[in-house]
């Protein structure tokens, strides 16, 4: 007993001394916190990676000399990713964000080798003692977009340019359809898969093909502003994705669902600096300022804008939740019973369409 108590004391003391030493160290040295970012695309894509880099810049703006940020762009989601992440960890980065799904396993492997470094992986589902995940609930923005689209459409045909049939995209298509079903059941959702996250030419082609078929509001789940430009030329509406695309179509731009990674990055840096960072599965949306709708087109009727803002307020305070039962799948079976909300971990692996979507998920 005694012995154990003694050792406890010693441990406690040592820990205390160490802590004190550490804190004086950090005060004296005031070494900047090194934060690394790994991007899947070039920051010049004006889409996903660009928007993460905007988040990085806002970290620099917020903390100034207290941080030093580094990014590596165009990192292939194969064998290279692990080396890049490893090198970031080895060169003294204290916090590393890996911003594409394909970086999940590489991040996990490096996290095990560097237990003192904090890792955060975007859009994945695997975690470790020093590796958390983060994702934003773009579906909230899509739900609002779906509502606005349902009100401004004259042809009752809404287009959705989709990239790859992964859960995130399916989920957002469903959120759009749920808004359409609720606010304008006559409206039909036309989905075109372009099999790419970024191909301006093909995205424009898809937008044109939709408009040729009478679509007068275009939503997109791809990264370039080409669809917005195409819509502007033909005088129909479009909804921007990832970044604010209003400059590409002043008249066409209905609204943009903007990913603001800045707040999450700033909060995370803060908690690492304070020593309170813990890995968690962070899911952030409008409430946390991760999903933002900066502006609405002036031609949208005032009552529609008012209702949209009401929806945004509801999404923020939790009174509105797109995936609230009853929700049926395409076969008409009730998947989410009346009154229940589909939990996030179900949304995370969504692989079925809700009732009302005319096409099927490509196999």
């Amino acid at each position, binding site marked *: 007993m005694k012995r154990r108590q003694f050792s406890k004391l010693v441990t406690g003391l040592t820990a205390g001394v160490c802590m004190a030493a550490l804190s004086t160290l950090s005060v004296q040295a005031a070494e900047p916190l090194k934060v690394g970012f790994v991007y899947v695309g070039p920051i010049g894509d004006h889409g996903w990676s660009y928007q993460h880099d905007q988040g990085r810049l806002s970290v620099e703006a917020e903390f100034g000399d207290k941080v030093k940020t580094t990014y590596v762009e165009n990192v292939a989601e194969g064998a290279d990713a692990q080396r890049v992440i*490893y090198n970031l960890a080895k060169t003294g980065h204290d916090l590393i964000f890996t911003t594409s*799904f394909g970086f999940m*396993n590489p991040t996990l492997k490096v996290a095990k080798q560097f237990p003192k470094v904090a890792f955060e992986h975007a859009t994945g589902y695997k975690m470790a003692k020093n590796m958390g995940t983060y994702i934003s609930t773009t579906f909230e923005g899509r739900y609002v977009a779906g509502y606005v689209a349902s009100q401004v459409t004259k042809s009752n045909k809404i287009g959705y340019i989709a990239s790859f049939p992964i859960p995130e995209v399916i989920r957002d298509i469903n959120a759009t359809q749920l808004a359409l079903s609720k606010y304008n059941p006559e409206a039909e959702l036309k989905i075109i898969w372009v099999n790419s996250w970024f191909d301006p030419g093909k995205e424009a082609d898809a937008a044109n093909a939709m408009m040729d078929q009478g679509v007068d509001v275009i939503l997109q789940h791809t990264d370039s502003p080409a669809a917005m430009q195409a819509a502007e030329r033909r005088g129909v509406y479009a909804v921007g994705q990832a970044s604010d695309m209003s400059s590409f179509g002043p008249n066409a731009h209905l609204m943009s669902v903007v990913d603001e990674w800045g707040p999450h990055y700033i909060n995370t840096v803060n908690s690492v600096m304070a020593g309170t960072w813990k890995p968690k599965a962070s899911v952030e949306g409008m409430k946390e300022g991760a999903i933002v709708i900066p502006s609405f087109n002036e031609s949208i009727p005032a009552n529609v804008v008012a209702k949209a803002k009401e929806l945004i307020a509801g999404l923020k305070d939790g009174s509105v939740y797109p995936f609230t039962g009853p929700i049926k799948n395409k076969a008409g079976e009730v998947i989410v019973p009346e009154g229940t909300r589909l939990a996030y971990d179900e949304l995370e*692996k969504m692989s079925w369409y809700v009732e009302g979507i005319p096409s099927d998920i490509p196999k």
Partner: protein
Amino acid sequence: MIKLEPRGERSTTMAYLSPLLAAFLTMLTGAILFTVLGIDPVDALITILYVPISDTHGIAELCVKTAPILLCAIGLSVVFKAKIWNIGAEGQLLMGGLFGSFIALQLIEAEGFWVLPLVLIAGVIGGMFWAGIAAILKVRFNTNEILTTIMMNYIALNILLWAVHGPLKDPEGYNFPESALFGDASLLPILIEGTRVNFGIALALLAVVAVWVLMSRSFYGFQIKVMGMDAGAARLSGFKEKRLTYFALLLSGGLAGLAGVGEVTGPIGQLIPQISPGYGYAAIIVAFLGRLHPVGILFASLLMALLYMGGEMAQISLGLPLALTGLFQGMLLFYLLACDVLIAFRIRLKPKKAKTLQPLATETQG
């Protein structure tokens, strides 16, 4: 006026000197470029060319990165010697990765020493299968292999994407386009604990030796070389052109397939959409940089791998944009390709003649 004159025979001195000259020119241009951009040139060059391999881990990573490029390039050297222009190493690599993954996924639970060889052989077969199609098209239908192999790269990529989005997707993987992680028995063993360097580099080096022996010591290699130099002479000597074509294409396809399966069973450990960031294309450049000689190719692939890693390091340590290293890489390749001219030609300073009798003598200015 500076004039290029053909040498009677290829210069051995220049064969060694020209890469050094190219390296020097790249350094010089690079240094100017970096200085203009306000970056310390010495710092930049050290970061790109030395820092990535300054410790054991770095060297291990260099091996990891070199293995697939080397395997593809050494295979290509054989077909290129036969003047068969296989541009399809990328597609053959992808098919190797796909076939290997298919077997590995059937054997996730399996244990035993036989699993890995089986998976590797499946990968080799995948690459051979894909190159074999190009070989049949060439031999039976006389189609241009440059074009068929380029087209088949795209077809292979789309088949791979289809498979990883569909039948080979991890059922537990939240519907993301990735296969399940392979079982331990189908992973290439690690050579140095704590790093990622695996048996793949050993296989690649083995392939280099084997191809070297084949090309310089065997009758088959001799026949391939003769066929490449003079197809007519080869035919007159009774060499079986069709059989040699099949052999060369299947060999290079098999090695590319091995590179692919080596990636999925090595550093990646599962099938993903992007198993190659263009190794098959890089290998074409490497094969020519190495002048289709095994030793040359070994050095060229090490250099290529280092350039990739240097590009990452320059971003991490100096914040240089990737575009800049792309530029640097392109420049180095141009210089290397250009300096090789000195092997077959000599530079001579000559007074300009009014009218040369050699209407095609090449001239350069400056």
